[in-house]
C-alpha cells in the first residue's frame, strides 16, 4: 500500500474551449498527443482474439436453449460425436463430472456453465462441440438432440415475486421464490419528515430498459492447455485479466502460476467483457479434453442474447420540494431485474452498485432508496455499458425527476437546477446517502453549457416554433459521477481489493517500460499511461512502452471498468514514477557529488539548487544507475520501482449536457439537432482522447434514449437478438458534437485527474429524453423513444412500458 501525501498538482491546462491543435503534437507529458496504438490498427495489424491461430487449434461452438424456461429431459450427442470432424462434445453432465457444471459469479451467486437440470433463459448454453474447423463445429451442434419440457417463464420483473410465479432457481437449496436481495441506503425517517413538510411532491415511475453494450467485437477466447507442463494459456476478451486468472484458479483448481491470461487487442468492451462467460470455461475444458488449443468466438446473436445486459431498473421515484423550487428530498423504490443468475459485476458490499449516488448534483436534505433484486428468465448481467456500477440509472432517475418537478412547478429546468446545485464552497460535500464528493464547481459548468448552446435564444426559438405547431425540445442533464473503485477497505470483487499495482523500469539508455494491471479496450492507455510517466519523469512518451493485458508480465490489479483506470491505475503510474524520481535524486547526488537535498527537479533532470548547469538528466541517471558509479550505502543499482495504489476515495467528475431535438409531429420521429457537452474530469491527460471518449458516450446516450432495447415477448423469446432489431446509431443519427470543459482537479488524486470514460453514457440519456418530452409536452414516457412510441405519446395515450 502506498500512502500518497504529496499535495495535488494544480494542472496547467494546455488548451481551452474549442481551441484545437495549438499544442505540440508530441508533448513530454500531458497534452494532445496522437495515439501510439493507431499505426497498427490503421494497417489492419491489430491482434484481436479471433486473429490468433495456434498450431493444431480446434474450434468450438455452443448449442443454446430455444426456450426461456424448460426442464432438460435428455441430451443425445451421438450424431454429433459421429461427425468426422468432431473431436469432443461436452455437455452439462461432462462438466458435472469435473465439478464445473456451475461457476461462481461476481455477485457470489452461481451460474450454469452448461445446463444440467433445466434451462433458465433463451440462448443459455447447453452443450459445447469441439471440431476441426468453425463450419464443422456449427454443423455438429445442429446434430445434438435435446428433449425439453417447457415450463412457464417469468418475463416481467413485476410478476417475479407473485406467489404463483414459477421458481426459477430451484437448484438453490431451500429456494422458494425469485427474490435475490434487498438493499437500502439513506435515512428513511429523515426522508419521510421532509416529504411530510414539502409543498410539492412529484411521483414518477420509470423504467430504464434492458439494453446491451454490444461491443463490435463479440466475446471469445483461445484456450491452450499444455499437456506436458500443465500450463494453461488463455487469450480472451477480458477487461480484467488478473481477476480472471484468480477465478480460473479457484474454479478449475489449476494453480495460479500455471495460468496465463492474455488480453490481446480488444475490439471494445463497454463492460461486456468484465465477467467470465460459459464459453471461456468450455474452451478451457475443450483444450484439456483434446490436448489441443481451442478457439471459441461467439456470433452477434449469441452476444446479444446471452452476455451481460445492462440496466433493467424499474424505478418508482419521488421528489419533494418547496413551492419556490427548493428540492428537499428524493426517495425511490427500485425493482431490479437480474435475469436467471445474479452475475452482476460490482463490489461485494454493493448489490445495487453505486445507485445511491442518486441525489445527484443537488444539495438535498434527505434521501432514501430501497432496491429489490429479482430473478427472471432472461440472460444475466446488469452492470455494463459504461454504467459506473448503476450510476447511469441513478443519474437518469434524478435528472428525470428534476424535469418532472420543473413541469409541476412551471419552472425553467435550467433555473431549477442552478438553484439547487451543490455550491463550490461546500466541497468536499457529503451527500445524504454516504458519498463524499471530492470537488466541483457546478454552477460554472452549467453556465458554460447554457452559454455555449445559447439557451435563452433556444427557448425563444422554441416558443416561436410552438406557435407554428412545430415540435422542438431542449433537454438538460447535470450529472455527478462516482468513478475509481475503490478504497480496498470498502470495495472488493469476490474478496479481491480494488487496488492496482504498477511497475516502472527505466532501462540503461533511459527508455522505460511501465506495466499496468488495467486493460484498455480502446481508451488509449498505451498512449496516456506513457504520458503520465512522461509528465512525472520527463522521458518522452514515445520512449515509454506500456505493457498491459498479460498476467505473466504485469502486476496484479482489478482491470478496466467503472472508469477506474485513471483514478486508480493512473495514480499508481504517477506514484511509481515519483518513486523512480526519488531514487534518481539519490543517484544524481552521487553523480554530482552533492547531497540529494541540494538538488531540484525540473522535468527530466535533477540539478543543483542555484546552479542549473550542474545537472543530470534522467537518461544520464539511468545509465549511471546501471554502471560503475558508487552509490550510497543501502541504495541498490538500477532504476525501477513498484507500487500498489489503494485509492483514498472515489473521484467525482461531473458535467452539464444540453440536447436540442426536433420531433416530426406526423411520424413521431426524433432528430437530434445539437448536443452540447461540458465535462469536468479534473486534470486532463490527453484532451484529444477525452473528447473521443465523450463523443462515443454521447452516441450511446442517443442510442439508448431513442433506439436500443433488449425486449422479450410473453414466452421469454428475446426480440432483439441481432442488429436487425437491436438498433445502434449510425453516423446519420448523431449530430456533430459540441464539447467544452472546465477543470476542477480531484484533491486526493496524485495529479488531480478524475475518470471520464463513462460520463457521457451516464449523463446523456436523460438529456435526450428530457428534450423529447419537452418537445412533445408529455411529463414522462419510457425509453426508447422510437417513432411509434413518441407518436403514441403525441396521441395522448399511455405509452406502455416496454418488456
Amino acid at each position, binding site marked *: 500500500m502506498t500512502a500518497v501525501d504529496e499535495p495535488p498538482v494544480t494542472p496547467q491546462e494546455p488548451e481551452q474551449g474549442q481551441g484545437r491543435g495549438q499544442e505540440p503534437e508530441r508533448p513530454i507529458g500531458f497534452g494532445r498527443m*496522437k*495515439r501510439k*496504438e*493507431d*499505426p*497498427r*490498427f*490503421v*494497417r*489492419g*495489424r*491489430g*491482434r*484481436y482474439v*479471433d*486473429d490468433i*491461430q495456434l498450431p493444431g487449434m480446434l474450434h468450438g461452438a455452443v448449442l443454446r436453449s430455444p426456450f426461456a424456461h424448460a426442464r432438460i429431459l435428455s441430451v443425445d450427442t451421438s450424431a454429433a460425436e459421429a461427425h468426422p470432424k468432431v473431436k469432443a462434445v461436452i455437455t452439462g453432465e461432462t462438466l458435472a463430472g469435473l465439478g464445473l457444471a456451475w461457476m461462481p459469479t461476481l455477485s457470489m451467486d452461481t451460474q450454469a456453465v452448461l445446463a444440467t437440470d433445466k434451462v433458465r433463459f433463451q440462448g443459455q448454453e447447453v452443450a459445447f462441440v469441439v471440431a476441426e474447423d*468453425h*463450419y464443422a463445429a456449427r454443423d455438429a451442434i445442429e446434430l445434438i438432440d435435446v428433449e425439453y419440457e417447457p415450463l412457464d417463464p417469468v418475463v416481467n420483473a413485476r410478476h417475479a415475486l407473485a406467489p404463483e410465479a414459477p421458481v426459477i432457481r430451484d437448484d438453490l437449496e431451500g429456494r422458494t421464490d425469485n427474490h435475490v436481495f434487498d438493499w437500502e441506503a439513506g435515512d428513511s425517517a429523515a426522508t419521510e419528515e421532509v416529504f411530510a413538510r414539502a409543498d410539492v411532491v412529484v411521483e414518477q415511475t420509470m423504467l430504464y430498459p434492458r439494453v446491451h453494450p*454490444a*461491443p*463490435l*467485437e*463479440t466475446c471469445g477466447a483461445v484456450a491452450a492447455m499444455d499437456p506436458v507442463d500443465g500450463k494453461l494459456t488463455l487469450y480472451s476478451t477480458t477487461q480484467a485479466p488478473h481477476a480472471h486468472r484468480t477465478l480460473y484458479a479457484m474454479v478449475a483448481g489449476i494453480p495460479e502460476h500455471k495460468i496465463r491470461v492474455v488480453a490481446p*487487442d*480488444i*475490439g*471494445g468492451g*463497454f463492460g461486456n467483457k468484465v465477467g467470465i462467460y460459459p464459453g471461456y470455461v468450455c474452451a478451457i475444458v475443450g483444450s484439456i479434453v483434446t490436448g489441443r488449443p481451442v478457439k471459441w468466438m461467439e*456470433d*452477434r*446473436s449469441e452476444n446479444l442474447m446471452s452476455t451481460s445486459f445492462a440496466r433493467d431498473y424499474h424505478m418508482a421515484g419521488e421528489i419533494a420540494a418547496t413551492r419556490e423550487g427548493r428540492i428537499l428530498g428524493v426517495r425511490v423504490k427500485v425493482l431490479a431485474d437480474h435475469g436467471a443468475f445474479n452475475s452482476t459485476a460490482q463490489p461485494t458490499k454493493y448489490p445495487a452498485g453505486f445507485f445511491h449516488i442518486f441525489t445527484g448534483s443537488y444539495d438535498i436534505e434527505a434521501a432514501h432508496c430501497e432496491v429489490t433484486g429479482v430473478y427472471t428468465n432472461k440472460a444475466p448481467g446488469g452492470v455494463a455499458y459504461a454504467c459506473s456500477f448503476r450510476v447511469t440509472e441513478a443519474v437518469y432517475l434524478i435528472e428525470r425527476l428534476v424535469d418532472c418537478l420543473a413541469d409541476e412547478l412551471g419552472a425553467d429546468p435550467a433555473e431549477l437546477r442552478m438553484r439547487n446545485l451543490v455550491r463550490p464552497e461546500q466541497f468536499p460535500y457529503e451527500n445524504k446517502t454516504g458519498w463524499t464528493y471530492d470537488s466541483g464547481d457546478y454552477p460554472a459548468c452549467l453556465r458554460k453549457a447554457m452559454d455555449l448552446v445559447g439557451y435563452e435564444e433556444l427557448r425563444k426559438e422554441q416558443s416561436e416554433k410552438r406557435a407554428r405547431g412545430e415540435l422542438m425540445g431542449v433537454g438538460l442533464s447535470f450529472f455527478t459521477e462516482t468513478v475509481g473503485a475503490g478504497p480496498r477497505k470498502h470495495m472488493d470483487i469476490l474478496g479481491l481489493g480494488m487496488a492496482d499495482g504498477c511497475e516502472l523500469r527505466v532501462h540503461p539508455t533511459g527508455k522505460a517500460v511501465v506495466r499496468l494491471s488495467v486493460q484498455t*479496450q*480502446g*481508451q*488509449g492507455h498505451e498512449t496516456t499511461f506513457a504520458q503520465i510517466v512522461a509528465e512525472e519523469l520527463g522521458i518522452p512518451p514515445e520512449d515509454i512502452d506500456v505493457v498491459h493485458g498479460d498476467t505473466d508480465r504485469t502486476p496484479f490489479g482489478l482491470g478496466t471498468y467503472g472508469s477506474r483506470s485513471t483514478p486508480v491505475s493512473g495514480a499508481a503510474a504517477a506514484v511509481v514514477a515519483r518513486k523512480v524520481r526519488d531514487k534518481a535524486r539519490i543517484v544524481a547526488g552521487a553523480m554530482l557529488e552533492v547531497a540529494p537535498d541540494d538538488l531540484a527537479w525540473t522535468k527530466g533532470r535533477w540539478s543543483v539548487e542555484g546552479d542549473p548547469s550542474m545537472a543530470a538528466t534522467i537518461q544520464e541517471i539511468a545509465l549511471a544507475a546501471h554502471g560503475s558509479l558508487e552509490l550510497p550505502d543501502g541504495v541498490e543499482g538500477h532504476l525501477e520501482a513498484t507500487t500498489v495504489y489503494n485509492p483514498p476515495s472515489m473521484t467525482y467528475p461531473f458535467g452539464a449536457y444540453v440536447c436540442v431535438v426536433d420531433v416530426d409531429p406526423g411520424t413521431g420521429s426524433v432528430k437530434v439537432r445539437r448536443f452540447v457537452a461540458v465535462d469536468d474530469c479534473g486534470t486532463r491527460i490527453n484532451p*484529444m*482522447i477525452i*473528447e*473521443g*471518449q*465523450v*463523443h*462515443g*458516450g*454521447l*452516441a450511446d446516450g442517443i442510442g439508448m434514449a431513442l433506439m436500443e432495447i433488449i425486449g422479450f415477448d410473453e414466452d421469454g423469446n428475446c426480440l432483439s437478438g*441481432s*442488429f*436487425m432489431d437491436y438498433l*445502434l446509431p*449510425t*453516423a*446519420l443519427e*448523431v449530430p*456533430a*458534437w459540441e464539447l467544452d470543459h472546465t477543470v476542477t482537479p480531484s484533491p486526493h488524486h496524485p495529479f488531480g485527474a478524475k475518470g471520464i470514460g463513462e460520463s457521457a453514457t451516464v449523463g446523456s440519456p436523460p438529456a435526450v429524453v428530457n428534450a423529447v418530452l419537452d418537445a412533445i409536452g408529455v411529463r414522462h414516457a419510457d425509453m426508447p423513444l422510437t417513432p411509434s412510441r413518441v407518436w403514441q405519446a403525441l396521441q395522448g395515450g399511455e405509452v406502455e412500458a416496454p418488456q
Partner: protein
Amino acid sequence: MRITVDVNGEDRTREVEPRHLLVRFLRDDLGLTGTHWGCDTSNCGTCVVLMDGEPVKSCTVLAVMAAGHEIRTVEDLADGDRLDPVQQGFIEQHGLQCGFCTPGMMLAGRALLDRNPDPSDQEIREAISGQLCRCTGYLNIVKSIQWAAREQATAAAPEATATATATATATATATATAAGGQT
C-alpha cells in the same frame, strides 16, 4: 471448389467449400486478419473490403463469388511506409479507438474519395452509414475522411491551379484513384 481471387494485386488460389464466406477466406485462409467480423446480419460493416473498387460487406459475399474479381483489403491501403491519406487522417483526427471498425471505415472512406474527392460532411456520413462504430460517436471519423480529402487536394494542387476547375476535379479524382489503386 478451386477458386482464384485477386487479393491486393496478387492471385490467390485455394480450395474452398461453396458456402465459405469471403470474410473467412480472407481471414482464415489468407491470414488477412485486418478485415473483421462484428455481426451476423450484414449490418455492422466491420468486414467491408473493396471488390472491383466498390465497398462490399465480405460477410455477405461467398468466396466463390469473388473468384476472378479484385479484392482490396486494409492491408493494401498503405504503400510501403507511406500511409494512404485516409489512414493518416484517422490518426490525425483520432478517428479510431478500439480499432475494430477502422479497416472497414477506412475502405469506405477510400471508395468515397475515389468517386467524390470533395465530399460534404453529410455525404461522408451517408457513405459510412452501412457501418457501425461503438467508440467514436462518428464525428472524428467524418473529420478523418475530410482530412484525407484535403490532403489529397493539396497533393494535387500544383497541377490543379494550372488548369480549369473541371480539369482540376478530374485530376484530383485521377490522383485519388491512382493512390487508391496502388498495390
